[in-house]
């Protein structure tokens, strides 16, 4: 089982969290002209990196905040977590 350090509540079990997807995906700007390809990329296309991956997690059964998590997709080691508005290196 993974343990994820919530920036608000401290170290918690993965059972309290929900995975929220790739944190690198950026939604196209509101009301901007978007091609079908750009929209398709935003909705469907995801990278599946081997190694470090920046992810969004939601502390569903805790403080109910979205957080950023840098995780290794091979070892599942978690390198860093941050609040949603914070940058992660």
């Amino acid at each position, binding site marked *: 089982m993974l343990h994820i350090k919530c920036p608000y*509540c401290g170290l918690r079990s993965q059972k309290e969290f929900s995975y929220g997807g790739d944190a690198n995906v950026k939604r196209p700007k509101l009301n901007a002209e978007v091609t079908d390809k750009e929209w398709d990329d935003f909705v469907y296309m995801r990278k599946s990196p081997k190694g470090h991956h920046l992810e969004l997690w939601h502390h569903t059964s805790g*403080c*109910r*905040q979205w957080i950023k998590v840098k995780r290794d997709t091979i070892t599942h080691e978690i390198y860093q977590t941050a609040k949603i508005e914070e940058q992660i290196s």
Partner: protein
Amino acid sequence: MTLLSPLSDIHEIGIYGNIENKTESNLLEISEETLKSIYQITKFKNSDSSLTNLSIRDLQISNNPMIVKSNLKTRILWTGPNQWLIISDDKILEDELKIFDSNNFAVTDLSHTRAIINIKGENSLEVLKKGCPYNFNNLKKNMSINSVYHSIAVTIDFIEENPYAMRIMCLRSFGESLYHSITDACLEYGYKAI
């Protein structure tokens, strides 16, 4: 209107579980708490209102994670950034809640929406450890956590240390399942339902 408590169908007074060679004072005590006033206070994301000088019943509202501010009748639990749960033995009057102005705060009456189980006794922590993944070595008196107990989302409030006394809250509709989980975990130590 008749008021039915969330656990009225299953909480039966008696002594259960492994009670051999134990006196009543050594048993865990399980009780249901009813008639609590519960209010959820949330500060809006776009609010720049300060929390200093914001207090209710002489208890200061603060953003210290997991810290509970309390006096004899009222406890204020931190449940997330800019979110608190006020739990009180008596009715909190509308006038008292006016300090949370509607431009900056949302106040929601959650009384009767929660099942509340009180557990008291030296093995209380062991009972919680059986179903909750939190490291209870980090939890001290007057702290509270949101976590899960057998996958049911719960709020655990650490009320007293000697002997341990905890208040476990979950959504009313999950109350009976949580009660079964808690009492099953208590059987090993023997418990008194009061």
